[in-house]
């Protein structure tokens, strides 16, 4: 298509990415809808887990159980966040406006993954801060755990953003996202719980390598599928 | 062949055949305990020993032979019920495929008559 002489130049992909990301952050800053719903959900989960485990003996098994439960909370908090974002997109056809951007829709996908990742990380920090006194959590023995958290979050959000754009248009979309996403992210969940467990004191940290590899493969695969398929899903 | 009740009947038959294994009377096929009777008292101990051993062997051989027959009998009935279930299932598959062909010919006929009307 020949460029109109008066039309503004097409922004570079990086500039467009920053603009879209800025929009997401600004919207979140003004509404605080994602972090408040995800954060409250996660905190409630911590309280409920504590309540459920209150009569268990406080030992190593309980500690490992709590860590796995925190991953369950994280996955559901991510689903809450993805649903909120998808509903906001569909309202007043915002998604169609965004798709008009003169870039590949994959950019839109990338922005959404990065922004929800940022909000999810904030939520997780809140959750961990709450869990340290409430569930007697000790997490940061090995800095590698940070890599596990980020990789697992990407593994959940990469297919999550893709599926949320499907379920946003479907009947009963919010429940549907849970149904669709849970089977797909099982390998990520396995990797995250396995690696977290292996990095605890007293466990063999070498065992974490296989789980990190699993997380890495899942991240790469889901991210590639998301980048390839998001545009196809939203065309026309 | 298109009657839905017939398919239901076939499926019910398959289910019933599946369940037939539960109702199988395995008791009649299995072995009964031996009638143990104490051997008649004899004088020499070694004589008694060898006599007992021969008797025991004979009983054992008989028992193993019975066991074999019982085993083969239950395998046979299991095979029969399995084979019946799979036969019904694949008769169902083949008949369903043929009825799909009939159904699509019917749709094709409707389409042609509709297009004939429009023309």
């Amino acid at each position, binding site marked *: 298509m020949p460029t109109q002489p008066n039309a503004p130049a097409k922004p570079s992909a990086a500039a467009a990415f920053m603009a879209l990301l800025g929009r997401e952050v600004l919207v979140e800053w003004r509404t605080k809808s994602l972090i408040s719903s995800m954060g409250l959900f996660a905190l409630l989960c911590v309280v409920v887990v504590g309540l459920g485990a209150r009569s268990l003996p406080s030992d190593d098994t309980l500690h490992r159980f709590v860590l796995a439960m925190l991953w369950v909370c994280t996955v559901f908090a991510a689903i809450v966040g993805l649903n909120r974002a998808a509903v906001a997109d569909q309202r007043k056809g915002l998604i169609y406006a965004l798709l008009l951007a003169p870039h590949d829709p994959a950019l839109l996908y990338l922005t959404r993954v990065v922004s929800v990742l940022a909000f999810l990380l904030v939520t997780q920090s809140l959750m961990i801060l709450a869990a340290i006194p409430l569930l007697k959590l000790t997490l940061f023995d090995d800095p590698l755990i940070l890599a596990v958290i980020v990789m697992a979050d990407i593994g959940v959000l990469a297919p999550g953003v893709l599926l949320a754009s*499907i379920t946003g248009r479907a009947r009963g979309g919010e429940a549907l996202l849970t149904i669709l996403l849970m089977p797909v992210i099982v390998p990520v969940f396995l990797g995250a719980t396995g690696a977290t467990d292996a990095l605890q004191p007293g466990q063999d940290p070498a065992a974490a390598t296989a789980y990190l590899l699993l997380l890495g493969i899942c991240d790469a695969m889901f991210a590639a599928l998301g980048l390839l398929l998001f545009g196809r899903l939203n065309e026309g | 062949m298109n009657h839905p009740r017939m398919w239901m009947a076939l499926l019910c038959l398959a289910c019933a055949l599946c369940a037939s294994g539960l109702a199988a009377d395995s008791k009649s096929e299995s072995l009964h305990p031996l009638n143990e009777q104490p051997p008649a008292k004899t004088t020499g101990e070694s004589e008694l020993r060898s006599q007992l051993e021969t008797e025991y062997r004979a009983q054992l051989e008989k028992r193993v032979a019975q066991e074999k027959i019982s085993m083969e009998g239950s395998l046979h009935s299991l095979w029969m019920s399995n084979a019946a279930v799979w036969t019904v299932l694949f008769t169902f598959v083949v008949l369903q495929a043929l009825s799909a062909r009939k159904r699509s010919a019917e749709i094709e006929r409707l389409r042609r008559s509709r297009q004939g009307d429009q023309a």
Partner: protein
Amino acid sequence: MPDTPTRSTAVWVTVALGALGMVGVHVTLYLSYFYTPTQVTPGTLWVVTPDSGAPISLYESYRIFFIHLPSAYTTAACCGLTALGGVMYLLSRKPKWELLIVSAAETGLAVGAMVLLTGTLWADYAWGSGRLGSGWNWEARLTTMLILWLAFAALLVLRRAIDQPRQRSLATAVYGILLGPLYPLVSKAVDINRTSHPRSFSDLLSAPEIATTQRIASVGVVIALLSLVALRYTWNSVGNNLNTERAA
């Protein structure tokens, strides 16, 4: 959904696969009951060795293997077919690929249930206490297989929730592709953890009769079960045509 003429090839493929499968199943059944050795003769106590724990004596229960393994292969094939159908649909936009995804998912649901049931029954007998469910121990392969089964169900639920045909087709294709990686996970699951599902059945297959029967079963029974994919394909395409005709 756009018009899809029911080709009579689909019908004949179904009939052929069904008939071949019937033969295959009967040969397998006959061999598995009368050719493979029974436990009466001494020295033929078949065992499998799980990755952790003592070897498990199988007695006669190993005969379920000739149905369990081919069903697992077929579930793998169904998972592959959904992914293949998804990719081909997005590339070509031909409705037949969407039909393939749906048929494979439906068959995967049925055959996956067979895998789970035969596996559970076998495990209950072989290393459980014999009560239903006593062999189920949340081991990685069992669990991932259950998840795959739930994912097939999720695909079909997803289709029911979307009214617009074009969106439904696209969503089906995308989810079909996302399902694809689950099968490699199921097959690698035995390597993730210490596991009670045997990694290989080499103990069992060291008997030549059992190995031969297993080879025949994994062709015959797989063909038989794949005829279900063909059957669902035929009927789904008839259903599509009927809907088009009703709408016209």
